């Protein structure tokens, strides 16, 4: 019986183009794993209707959301809310990882306390990253975004590998810390972006968290 995963990854503005780029590596890995069945709602397919249909028909145990967020919703293509207080019941018995701003603050709590989601991983404030302005049309090649890409991959990769939620968070936070200590030198930082990159990493480290049962795994 394969494990089932649902991923949403819109790509219609600068921020979602970076998250979409960050997701490519894990998509590539999952495609090579026979034991995992993935529903990939990408681009315009990342809408509320498809999200609901996949959850009810395929019953994935892990939901990986990439998009904009606020304290009470996470969006898909063109800012359409795909998860909010009205359909949060869909998270029951599942693990959710929202790579989006703010949603852990309220939506994550509601998912776990009211609707019995197993766990909700996300950010209690904005998810920050630093980009190279000359690379916004090709985020895959943006060196400034590299440490953020790395941390995002570590989190979802550890989840996919079956580590429990507590370990996944611990591992990602350790990586954020390690990158804050080691990232960059003046030689490879011609525009003086390293202090900001370190700050954004520290910000993401501070506000990454979870609600629910830390011992559950995918």
């Amino acid at each position: 019986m394969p494990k089932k995963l649902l991923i949403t990854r819109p790509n219609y503005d600068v921020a979602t183009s970076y998250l979409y780029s960050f997701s490519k590596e894990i998509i590539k890995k999952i495609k090579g794993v026979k034991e995992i069945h993935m529903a990939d709602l990408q681009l315009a397919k990342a809408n509320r209707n498809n999200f609901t249909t996949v959850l009810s028909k395929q019953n994935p145990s892990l939901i990986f959301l990439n998009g904009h967020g606020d304290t009470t919703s996470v969006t898909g293509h063109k800012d359409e809310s795909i998860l909010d207080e009205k359909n949060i019941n869909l998270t029951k018995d599942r693990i959710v990882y929202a790579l989006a701003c703010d949603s852990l603050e309220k939506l994550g709590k509601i998912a776990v306390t009211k609707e019995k989601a197993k766990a909700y991983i996300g950010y209690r404030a904005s998810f920050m990253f630093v980009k190279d302005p000359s690379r916004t049309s090709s985020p895959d090649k943006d060196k400034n975004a590299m440490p953020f890409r790395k941390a995002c991959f570590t989190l979802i990769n550890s989840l996919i590998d079956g580590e429990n939620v507590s370990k996944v968070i611990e591992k990602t936070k350790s990586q954020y810390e390690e990158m804050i200590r080691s990232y960059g030198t003046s030689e490879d930082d011609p525009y003086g972006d390293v202090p900001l990159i370190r700050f954004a990493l520290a910000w993401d480290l501070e506000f990454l968290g979870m609600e629910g049962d830390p011992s559950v795994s995918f």
Partner: protein
Amino acid sequence: MKNELYEGQKELVLARLKTLNTNSKIMLGGDKEYTVKDMIKHIEDNDDFGRKVVEVQIKMLKILTNIRE
């Protein structure tokens, strides 16, 4: 005492930020961008975002200097 500590931290963070290129930008997931200049303004205004910036900058300095909380 707590307030004095925060004021000291705030001065330290402002001094550090003022050494950076004030037009450098940080991207927030919501497609908003903040320049260093914006961050300085939020800190000087003592608003919620500014206080969070101070808190995180201090935590970052502790990591860089290996100070465990």
